[in-house]
């Protein structure tokens, strides 16, 4: 009987090891699928020679970036990607330029993947550029907002530029909520909800090479945790229809002309989920308001179902009028760019997420490339805000005036060109 038991035990042990050895490691490799990318070149450089090109695929899920230098070698895993195409080209007249294309939210699946990109020639800026957006402002010790936001422009050229007629705008679309608007005008226009224009006859506001032009919400003197803005060039004063929320007007600082604002009270730029830009309107303001209104429909999809919505009370600016723009979004909530990649291929941020209360005392500042022979900083301008701006840095006015960098009143002791590069 004992021998029989031993045989049973041995058989069981043998069977058991057989079961286990059949379960060997077999790591399944991740499948890569070929992707065909077609780039439609702009008409003016269709016959240009491509010197080099780069296809960049950023996996939206993982943030992993894969770069290819030839369209024939692109293979990707399944996923959702943001695609950026950059090429250096030489035109027939010998001029070399940079061409870019971008597509967001491209789905790569196990089937055939075809991507069509429309490239844009990157036109060298010959106007003012946005050097800094400080939209969040500062707060006092009790948490109240000081309303000291500003936008700082910069003359990155070697000639005098006049800010007269330059308009500051805020996009209507949010960078954290993506909808399929119908009609979709984004390839050709920026839809805005706020528009203020620098007054003047064309010679009133000269900006010298290497100089800044400061546009502020309120040109107020320094206060608790805030800094002096009475030296601002212009302010966007807004006549409010709400008695409890009135703007302040510094009579010594010229007011910008209000073309349009969605707000019935004062205009603030605190929300860090819009695109901010500057443009030169190609038509008078009244004609713009009459002919460039934008109305669209879109589907609001919720857990409770889909609802047809209408967007109105906003206007559209043609891309060719846009001088510069920076898309901004809370870092963790970014959904899409609300302008065409022809004018901005990237985005920047001051807030880490939608409820980030540490966004105050932070701005985005354009990166400095070098200091030229005249001693002026030369700022980076590639129409890609991700690459061009330093995100979430100390605002320049706080550095210049050595004021508070937080609600506790800690004073700023640093001085930089761009929030990162120290002034020597």
């Amino acid at each position, binding site marked *: 009987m004992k021998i029989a038991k031993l045989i049973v035990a041995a058989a069981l042990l043998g069977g058991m090891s057989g079961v286990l050895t059949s379960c060997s*490691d077999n790591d399944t490799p*991740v499948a890569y699928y070929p992707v065909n990318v077609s780039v439609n070149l702009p008409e003016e450089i269709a016959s240009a020679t491509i010197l080099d090109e780069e296809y960049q695929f950023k*996996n939206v899920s993982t943030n*992993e970036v894969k770069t290819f230098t030839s369209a024939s070698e692109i293979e990707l895993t399944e996923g959702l990607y943001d695609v950026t195409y950059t090429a250096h080209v030489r035109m027939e007249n010998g001029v070399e330029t940079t061409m870019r294309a971008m597509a967001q939210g491209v789905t790569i699946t196990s089937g055939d993947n075809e991507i069509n990109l429309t490239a844009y020639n990157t036109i060298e800026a010959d106007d003012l550029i946005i050097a800094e957006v400080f939209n969040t402002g500062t707060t006092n010790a009790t948490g109240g907002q000081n309303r000291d936001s500003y936008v700082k422009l910069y003359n990155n050229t070697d000639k005098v530029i006049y800010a007269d007629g330059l308009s500051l705008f805020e996009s209507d679309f949010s960078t954290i909520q993506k909808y399929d608007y119908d009609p979709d005008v984004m390839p050709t226009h920026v839809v805005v909800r706020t528009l203020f224009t620098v007054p003047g006859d064309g010679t009133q506001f000269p900006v010298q090479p290497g100089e800044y032009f400061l546009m502020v919400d309120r040109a107020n003197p320094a206060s608790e945790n805030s800094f002096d803005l009475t030296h601002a060039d212009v302010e966007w004063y807004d006549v409010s229809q709400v008695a409890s929320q009135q703007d302040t007007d510094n009579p010594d600082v010229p007011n910008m002309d209000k073309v349009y604002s969605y707000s019935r009270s004062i205009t603030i730029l605190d929300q860090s989920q819009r695109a901010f830009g500057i443009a030169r309107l190609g038509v008078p303001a009244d004609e713009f308001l009459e002919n460039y209104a934008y109305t669209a429909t879109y589907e609001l999809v919720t*857990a409770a179902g889909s609802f047809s919505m209408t967007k109105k009370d906003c206007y559209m600016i043609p891309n060719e009028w846009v001088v510069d723009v920076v898309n901004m979004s809370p870092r963790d909530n970014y959904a899409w760019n609300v302008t065409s990649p022809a004018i901005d291929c990237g985005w920047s941020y001051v807030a*880490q997420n939608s409820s980030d*209360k540490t966004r105050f005392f932070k701005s985005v500042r354009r990166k400095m490339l070098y200091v030229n022979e005249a001693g002026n900083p030369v700022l980076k301008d590639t129409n890609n805000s991700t690459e061009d701006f330093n995100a979430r840095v100390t605002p320049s006015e706080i550095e210049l005036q050595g004021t508070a960098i937080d609600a506790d009143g800690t004073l700023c002791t640093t001085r930089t060109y761009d929030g990162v590069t120290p002034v020597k």
Partner: protein
Amino acid sequence: MRNLIRYLSPATLALTVSVSAFGHEADTLAVAGDMIIERIARHEDMMRGMAWRSYANPAVRQWEQDYGYSALSGGYGYSGSNRAVDVSRGTGESAWRVAADSYIKHKTSTLWGSAGYSNGRQRGIRWNESSDADLVYPYFTADSIGGDMRMETYSFAGGYADHNDRWAWGVSAGYRAGLYYRAVDPRPRNTTGCLDIAAGGALRLGRSDYQAAVSVSFRKYKQSCDIEFVNELSDNSIWHLTGLGTHYERFAGSGYSHYYNGLQWGAGVNLFPSSRSGAVASVQFSSFNFDHILTGFNRLPLQSVTDSRVSAQAGWLAPGASHDFAVTADLSHRRRTGSENIFGDPSGNVYPQIGSLALYSHTLTEASLNVLWQWRPESESLLSVKPGVGWSRSDESYADPRRRVLLSAVTPGVTVKGSRIFGGKWHASLSAEIACALPVDNICELPYDKNIPAGMQAVDINRYDILSKTNTLAGVNVALSRALNGRYAIGVSAGYFRHGYADGVHSDRVDVSASFIF
């Protein structure tokens, strides 16, 4: 949680009281003549635990022991290390607990039950705000701050088995609930619930005492998690980890409310001698699947896991009058595959799923061989020696970008235990164990990624750094019981264990408890 307590407490009490009440009468009938001090001695006999896998089948558990044994106990446990081996599990924990356990024989029937409550603190957890880490890994939701976590756990379980000359059957059920929270930022609040149900049947083979048994089991698991930051100026960034220092970038900073929802099915076959003498064998298979779901994105299924496990044990039990002998071989193979779902452009807050990538895998294979020899120089003394050797191989990998951690070791060890009854009223035991894990083959491929927080990546690098080197475990346990009369006894026990790693890293564990045994 008050509701949970309201429901659990009466159930726990009812179970404990009913089992205990049943036990008073049943013990008298079934094991008349067994003095409590003798039952304590038999309960500490190491032979009982050698075929432990077989007792997962409730039909077989009726032959785990042939005497009734019940205990009400309370105790305190502490563990702590000077450096966390795995910071996502913390540096240690301390908790006090109360528990009731009962195992009752009545004619051919067997009834068992248990209930327990513990309250304490898990310390020094970083890069993980989820609970039940061994169940839901690698898909933790994490922040860079972490800290201690308060915990309360409740559990109750019970089972019934019976047999006749040819057939045997049994059922068991258990429920475990937990509440884990922190009162300072970041403030996770996790509630866990785990329901286990099993049923088994056995057929007597001919006229032998061998039982061929089968069993099926089912588990329902859910963990709901909420993270809150009260201080508006604190860093409230959170990440949804994907294993080996990676995370799901797209939903970083969002998904403060999430949950894990899982099911497990299992089946097993056993060969077990009802006399507990002869060959034992057990093969079990289980498959556990769960989804990790972000509540705020219309219940977005972010990740899912399939965990399949096959385990087996075979051995020989040879109890004798003055010498006992047993040998068992254990093998288990487990493969966990984690998939990340890919989502397209959202419409509002609704994300359409466009694909799924199986990126994480963990294969864990373990084998061990244990031998037990016991000697009774006289009827009231017992000396046990259990040498053994184990082998383990843990292979974790992430497919893209490629990351891998392989840890394998051979662990020889020995446990020596001596026990004795003094004067018919006292029972004392002293045991000591020592084991040493010797690395066999280790691989660490964790390239640094500048886009991922350094602390997140350091978790697995540090874990590898510690576990890839020789480490030793040593411990002692002492227990003392005194019979109050023929049916009741009280007992105390204390244990101390020290795990020493390279570079001065060590962890200590202390357990003390007091029991009322009947």
